């Protein structure tokens, strides 16, 4: 039983980690809570579903298109909502409110277009599971774990080793200084939104494969993603990965013997414990909450 709960925790944790990585990349660059990140998770899931259900597209192709669309949607949100606000020097509270607004608008559009009933990305019976230390893990679940780890490593490499990654770090540190060494900060922000939103898109498709597609699916994803990013240390990719796994593990194993309705409470309890005793998160980044 405990191994099965652990496996479930890792699966959930991987999707949280992907959302958290995207969130943390964007937060690290623009320093506000991009709550509409959750809406992008849902849009990617619906896009994949629509391409498969309406056009009969194979899964892989639908998934790739949806991930690109998710990245593009993030860029559009930045370009047409956040950037004008930034240029007007709006405080981050205003940006957060705008972000909430966009989240709700997108969620309502999804509900209007697709209805509020639950959709499934994979028709048919659940695939045969593999046995692992007494727990059952399906092929889909193995895919989820593998793609999360690969994407985490790729994102880390991208941010640490490429010029683009360095420009993100520079813009995050000091935008004026970044422009004075020749970095186009608006373009850097756009790229950060694309990368972060594409990661959210992957998460949306994985969540859809594992459970269901419904308009409000982004809410749980973004809340758990934010908690994971905070626990890991805001701005840290390895932190987001570990934070996601920790939250997934805690809420699945924590409900052992009690109702699974306690999952959210457990996640919040873990967050509160971190905020009290290690506010910088696992990796103790200096991008603490006061800078939100």
């Amino acid at each position: 039983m405990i191994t099965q709960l652990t496996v479930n925790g890792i699966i959930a944790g991987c999707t949280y980690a992907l959302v958290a990585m995207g969130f943390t990349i964007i937060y690290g660059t623009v320093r506000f809570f991009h709550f509409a990140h959750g809406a992008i998770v849902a849009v990617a899931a619906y896009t994949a579903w629509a391409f498969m259900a309406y056009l009969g597209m194979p899964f892989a192709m639908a998934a790739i298109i949806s991930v690109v669309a998710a990245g593009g949607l993030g860029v559009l949100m930045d370009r047409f909502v956040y950037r004008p606000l930034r240029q007007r020097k709006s405080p981050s509270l205003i940006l957060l409110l705008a972000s909430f607004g966009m989240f709700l608008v997108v969620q309502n559009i999804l509900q209007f277009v697709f209805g509020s009933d639950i959709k499934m990305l994979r028709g048919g019976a659940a695939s045969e599971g593999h046995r692992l230390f007494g727990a059952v893990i399906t092929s889909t679940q193995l895919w989820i774990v593998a793609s999360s780890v690969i994407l985490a490593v790729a994102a880390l490499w991208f941010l640490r080793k490429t010029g683009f990654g360095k420009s993100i770090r520079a813009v995050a540190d000091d935008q004026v200084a970044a422009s004075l060494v020749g970095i186009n900060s608006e373009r850097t922000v756009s790229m950060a939104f694309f990368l972060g939103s594409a990661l959210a898109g992957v998460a949306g498709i994985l969540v859809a494969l594992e459970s269901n597609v419904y308009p409000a699916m982004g809410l749980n994803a973004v809340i758990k993603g934010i908690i994971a990013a905070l626990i890991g240390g805001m701005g840290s990719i390895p932190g987001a990965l570990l934070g996601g796994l920790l939250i997934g593990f805690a809420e699945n194993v924590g409900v052992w013997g009690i109702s699974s309705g306690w999952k959210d409470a457990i996640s919040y309890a873990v967050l509160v414990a971190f905020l009290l005793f290690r506010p910088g998160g696992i990796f103790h980044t200096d991008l603490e909450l006061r800078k939100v």
Partner: protein
Amino acid sequence: MIQRCWTHISEGSVTMLLKVNSLSAGYGHTEAVKDVTFNIDVGHITALIGPNGAGKSTLLKALSGTLESYGGTITRGDILLDEEPIAGLRADQLVAKGLTLVPDGRRLFTHMTVQENLEMGGFTVRDKELFGINFNRVLTLFPEIAPLRPRKAGSLSGGEQQMLAIGRALMINPKLLLIDEPSLGLAPRLLDNVFEKIANLRNEQIIGVVVVEQNVHEVLKIADSVVALKLGEAAYVGNAADLRNDDAKLKEVFL
């Protein structure tokens, strides 16, 4: 009221690097720089002086393309760099043209190491060899920085930070370098040191430098020309030597 210094141009031996023509700039309804005109020659150090609030930093921000980030705008006038209009370009576009600013408050990447700050300074230098040349030149000019390279930039002393800020700006091998108050928070001895480096810089590489400075007597020792601002207007534009030997005139433009 505006005295122009044409001597260098008439000599024909020096070329003009920057031309500022009736430039006005400000923040919303406050006009901080009013109708300022002057030229900067290649290989010259220009001292930009004037009392607090005269508009010196605003002028440098306007020249470097960073004014918008501070909520300001250029309202009138032209800026020509090598005869090419540059007013309204962003700072990153100006870096590509060889102009950068060491801003007030230095604005280092405080979360990065000294080494990383220098590397970020050369972010746009794609040629590895050129990058290496620039890097070595900075370390030759500021040997004090070399042993500090593993440290976080935020942990350096004021003087060290100032040298790093200038060093970072030099990584693009600029043809025009603007420096805002390098002396801020520095001990007088360090101040001499930093000024000496700026003078060396001009002697070794033929670049234009504009230095904003409150220590007028100090900066006049190294400057070739002077632009004095007073309430946003140019109170004196001309030769540094004339001002150096004329205390009465110096008092007049500065008070």
